[in-house]
């Protein structure tokens, strides 16, 4: 626990001592803000559903960008050798890093609360239950993508490569839902269950089923475990 905290704090500090953390957050906030307010001026009305439609798309790029350096940077700089020879378990290292990346994503998501607050102060007829469910969905989605991101960061020492692999895996899970018309009905159920969109839309509609929570939990666990395994493999190369 102590070690996870050390890794987590170090990583979070390094996000904010370099310009990277700020750049990511500003870009994320600006893109979301742009799309959210776009319709606002066209139709003179606004709702949070617009935001919950945009953020998943922005996440496709934002999350791999945040996580691309988590492990790849350490490998590239050689600090991985120092870390691996400290009395530290690979699991602790991965969890600490993962939580730091996730924190940055949650901070980014926190910026979008501005829109909710604006609506709450000037709008009428606001369904806070739906907003809370929407945010829960986004948090789970961000956490899932972050686990994919840290995995792709572990398999290479090049941050750009990690970014591209991250996007590729994330988009695969994102688009799986759209493939359903091409597969046999027997496969459709499975593919639908694997696709992230299915679970996300369930949750953001307000139907928080344990099936959805189990999906996100097990996917995050799977990718974090894979990350640890990849790190262990370096010993045997």
């Amino acid at each position, binding site marked *: 626990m102590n070690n996870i905290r*050390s890794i987590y704090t*170090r990583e979070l500090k*390094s996000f904010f001592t*370099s310009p990277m953390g700020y750049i990511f957050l500003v870009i994320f906030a600006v893109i979301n803000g742009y799309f959210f307010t776009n319709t606002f001026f066209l139709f003179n009305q606004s709702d949070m559903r617009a935001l919950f439609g945009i953020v998943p798309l922005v996440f496709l790029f934002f999350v791999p960008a945040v996580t691309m350096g988590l492990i790849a940077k350490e490998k590239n*700089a*050689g600090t991985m050798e120092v870390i691996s*020879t*400290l*009395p530290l378990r690979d699991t602790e290292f991965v969890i600490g890093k993962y939580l730091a990346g996730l924190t940055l994503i949650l901070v980014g998501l926190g910026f979008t609360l501005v829109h909710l607050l604006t609506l709450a102060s000037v709008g009428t007829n606001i369904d806070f239950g739906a907003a809370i469910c929407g945010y829960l969905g986004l948090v789970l989605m961000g956490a899932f993508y972050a686990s994919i991101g840290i995995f792709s960061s572990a398999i290479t020492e090049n941050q750009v490569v990690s970014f591209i692999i991250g996007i590729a895996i994330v988009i695969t899970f994102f688009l799986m839902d759209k493939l359903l018309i091409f597969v046999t009905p027997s496969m459709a159920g499975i593919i639908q269950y694997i696709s992230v969109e299915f679970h996300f839309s369930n949750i953001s509609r307000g139907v928080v089923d344990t099936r959805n929570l189990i999906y996100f939990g097990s996917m995050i666990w799977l990718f974090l475990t894979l990350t640890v395994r990849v790190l262990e493999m370096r*010993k045997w190369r």
Partner: protein
Amino acid sequence: MIQVENLIKHYGPVKAVNGIDFQVHDGEILGMLGANGAGKSTTLKVMTGYLSPTGGNVHVNELNIQDHSLEIRRQIGYLPELNPLYLDMRVYDLLEFTARVRQIEGKAFKKALARVVELCGLSGVIHKQVAACSKGYKQRIGLASAIIHDPAILILDEPVSGLDPNQIREIRGLIKELGREKMVVISSHILQEIEATVDRIIIIDGGKIVADGTSDELMASFHGKTHLTLEVKHASDESIRELNAGIAALTITDINAVNGSHVIQLEYEKKDDPREAIFMHALAAKWTILEMSPSRVQLEDVFRNLTVKGASDE
């Protein structure tokens, strides 16, 4: 005590380490010498638990490196080759981070920090960013971070490469200081760095140990040729030729005529010392000897002899 038994490490088809055996005893400074790519760093990486061996084993104080990696890593301080550091951190934060991972916090950290700052001379840069420090300081920061938990075993991979002569002397002094109470393993491809610091040397070549002993032992066991410089006056070419013919064990490698005197370079097997015979010859030929100085066997000769021969054997 560290015990390395028949250590083998292959990177795919490349046999980086090919059956290495040695021991390091408590309070000993061991130097590991070898050309680039001889297998030194790989051996050290296995000893620190960074890599797993393909075959063989490493025991640290009776603990097996594969089963007790975490315990062993607690006892070891390691400075990897090229000294990778978190450049974006301040020196203080870096040391605090390492200390925290090693469960040193609060008062214990303050004490440990004061000790390494004094030992490594870091007081001037403690609040600087690591990236802003000079190479010499970076090396000291790496060393400070490796010894913050006061480890019983210190493993340093090429700790002085790339430093200027003054910095080398400083780091060397520091290592010697540390070696008084710790077991130190230090690798290098530069002889002078090691010769002055260590108690015992092992020479590695092609993934194997080709020599193991103190620097005196290694030089004593050296079977190469000794060189002798002879400067004489009043020597005719003919009498010089006679010298070569008269003493069987001797080979003349070079003759230089300078201002009426001859500087002759000679070579002979260490066991048959020809100096007396040369003197007698000079007396008979009526030479005046200005200089006769055998060059003493340098560790470098031993190293070159062992590693070059090893390479040609394969």
